[in-house]
């Protein structure tokens, strides 16, 4: 079990060790969340690496990752616990067959932990030899408000109440990471209990670093061109801007196509890895892409020339 980071620098190193290139502000949020034992609330567009943070934390801190994927209608039975009804039924029949008439005893027996099916949130509260797990509550915005309200108890006291058993308190506070794509606003009461961080698109320097870490097979020139191209694309008026995940996918695709540098033809044929809406693809494909590529090349050439002059 790795120790928690003692400073912001250590938090940054920790993320780096997990191949996650984080800027200072994110490292600060992560450090504070770990240090003060509060949940980390990550919001941002799809594909900017929110979920990845939880995975990296689990990996580098050597903890188990307990993941709860949210969806509309998510309820206690699939998020926290459920009774194993079939086994309970059998148990009752057996007790009756054995003429154990004491109802009170049967009730106590069948509502014991043996018959409890534990779902992610309850699992996260259990004692773990590796230390408290990382609890990832993914895409919280997909679920509905009642579930959000339920989370309030869990996130402030780290306990859940099962009527038949009583309150179950966490052995040790889990490291909680909540993500949201902002398809609806999360209630202030929940955000108030967390450290909030807006995960933005990275700047070109950081994106290049991410790309070098994630797709080492791509040459430096190709990576630079890709990053410059994507950064320019994000300034366009598109319905869905490409995230970091798309940049990585696209670079992977280009590598598979044996490209060492961007070309109009390669861009047009692989644009689907980068843009996910037909309107956007139709707008960019062809002349627009060529124009951006032209600009990218000119910029990179100018940059190179400036460097040469310096030497």
């Amino acid at each position, binding site marked *: 079990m790795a120790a928690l980071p003692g400073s912001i620098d250590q938090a940054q190193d920790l993320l780096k060790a997990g191949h996650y290139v984080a800027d200072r502000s994110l490292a600060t949020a992560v450090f504070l969340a770990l240090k003060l034992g509060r949940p980390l609330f990550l919001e941002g567009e799809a594909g900017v690496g929110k979920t990845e943070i939880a995975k990296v934390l689990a990996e580098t801190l050597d903890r188990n990752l307990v993941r709860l994927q949210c969806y*509309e209608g998510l309820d206690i039975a699939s998020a926290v616990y459920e009774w194993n009804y079939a086994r309970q039924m059998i148990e009752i029949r057996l007790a009756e067959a054995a003429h154990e008439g004491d*109802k009170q005893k049967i009730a106590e027996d069948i509502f014991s932990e043996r018959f409890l099916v534990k779902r992610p949130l309850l699992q996260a509260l259990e004692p773990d030899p590796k230390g408290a797990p990382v609890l990832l509550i993914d895409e919280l915005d997909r679920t*509905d408000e009642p579930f959000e309200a339920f989370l309030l108890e869990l996130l402030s006291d780290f306990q859940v109440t099962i009527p038949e058993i009583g309150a179950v308190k966490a052995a040790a506070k889990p490291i909680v990471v909540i993500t949201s794509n902002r398809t609806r606003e999360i209630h202030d009461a929940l955000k108030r209990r967390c450290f909030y961080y807006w995960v933005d698109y990275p700047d070109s320097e950081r994106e290049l670093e991410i790309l070098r870490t994630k797709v080492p097979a791509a040459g430096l020139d190709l990576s630079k061109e890709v990053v410059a191209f994507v950064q320019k694309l994000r300034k366009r008026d598109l319905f869905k801007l490409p995230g970091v995940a798309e940049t990585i996918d696209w670079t992977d695709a280009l590598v598979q196509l044996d490209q060492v540098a961007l070309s109009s033809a390669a861009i047009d044929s692989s644009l689907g890895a980068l843009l996910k809406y037909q309107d956007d693809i139709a707008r960019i494909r062809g002349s627009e892409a060529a124009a951006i590529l032209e600009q990218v090349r000119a910029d990179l050439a100018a940059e190179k020339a400036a460097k040469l002059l310096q030497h």
Partner: protein
Amino acid sequence: MPGEIQRGSRLAQNILLFARTLRAAGLPIGPGKVIDAIEAVKAAGIGSREDFYWTLHAVFVQRREQREIFDQAFHIFWKNPQFLQRMMSLLLPQLRYDKAEDEDRDEIATRLAEALQGDRAGAMDEIPVEQEEVEIDAALTFSDRELLQEMDFEKMTSAELAETKKAIAGLRLPIMEVPTRRFAADARGRRVDMRATLRASLRNAGAIPLKLKSPRYRHPPLVILCDISGSMSRYSRMALHFVHAITNDRDRVHTFLFGTRLTNITRDLRHRDVDVALDRVASHVKDWSGGTRIGHSLHDFNTDWSRRVLGQGAVVLLITDGLDREGVEGLEEEMIRLQKSCRRLIWLNPLLRYEAYRPQSQGAKAMIRHVDDFRPIHNLDSMQDLADALGRATMRSDRPNAKETRAA
């Protein structure tokens, strides 16, 4: 003074008059309340103005949105003893209301002004102006700013408001519901509620009584996009009252206004008093009664807001006449995108009041192809029709996901 109040005393009469004023301003106050109020004042005594205020407040105000009206009425009515005395001597307030504009002074709600004024316009000239000026002019100033860019909403008269409110009360409930993935116990349900069944089986040994459950139903989120351009100005105020009522009746309502640009007014409308809410809206919106750029506004909505508010199968009400000052370039694409992002897209068009209306303008032609429903919204009747349409289980739309809806 406590305990000294006699039936027919001045204070009792004052309270009676005050109650009448409040009633005229729309608060539901019957004769019983007046007696209660006199009793309450007797019991509490009039130690201070503040005590007196809260004593009357406790009796007359029953809902949060009534507080604003009560507050304004109280301060006008009980401020100037001379004013009151004069009112007492005349039994009913017969005052002269100078309608001079005074931009610096606060306006009071039109409906309260009307209530104070009553129907006695003819008797107004009898009172000399000078004595009342200080208190009353300040309160009852009207403004002609209505015609200016930042529209003043205060102009809805009591009659209009009462009618709209009445109609709206009927409109609220029947908006369609959709099944959620949550369940509630239901004796006629179609699924077995295992947990309840097991508990029941413990109570009566031998048999296992089946307990059933069925899905809960819930309103889908509602997003309202309302055109406030010049050509729509006569309807958008009515529409805003409608929107305010809906916002306060159910959760998950988001409202946007657009003329030349898009403004999110959801938070402003949360205020329970319609006057205050619309005031806040007015202070926010800068493009009142100007031109329209429907395509541009929809584009802004699609890029900045659609993913944030159209999640979970929202129903979109688009209130516009479809007259676009800008060209129609891009409008059709934005309409397609909007329709694809929501459960149902309903276009409410006040121009539909003309029987022979056919979408003539290019904008309207582009829009009509991409809506699930198309309805008039120019008077209370059409609003009623709209409510019925929204509540009906059979949808005009042939979109597959419309089938799962049902009447509330």
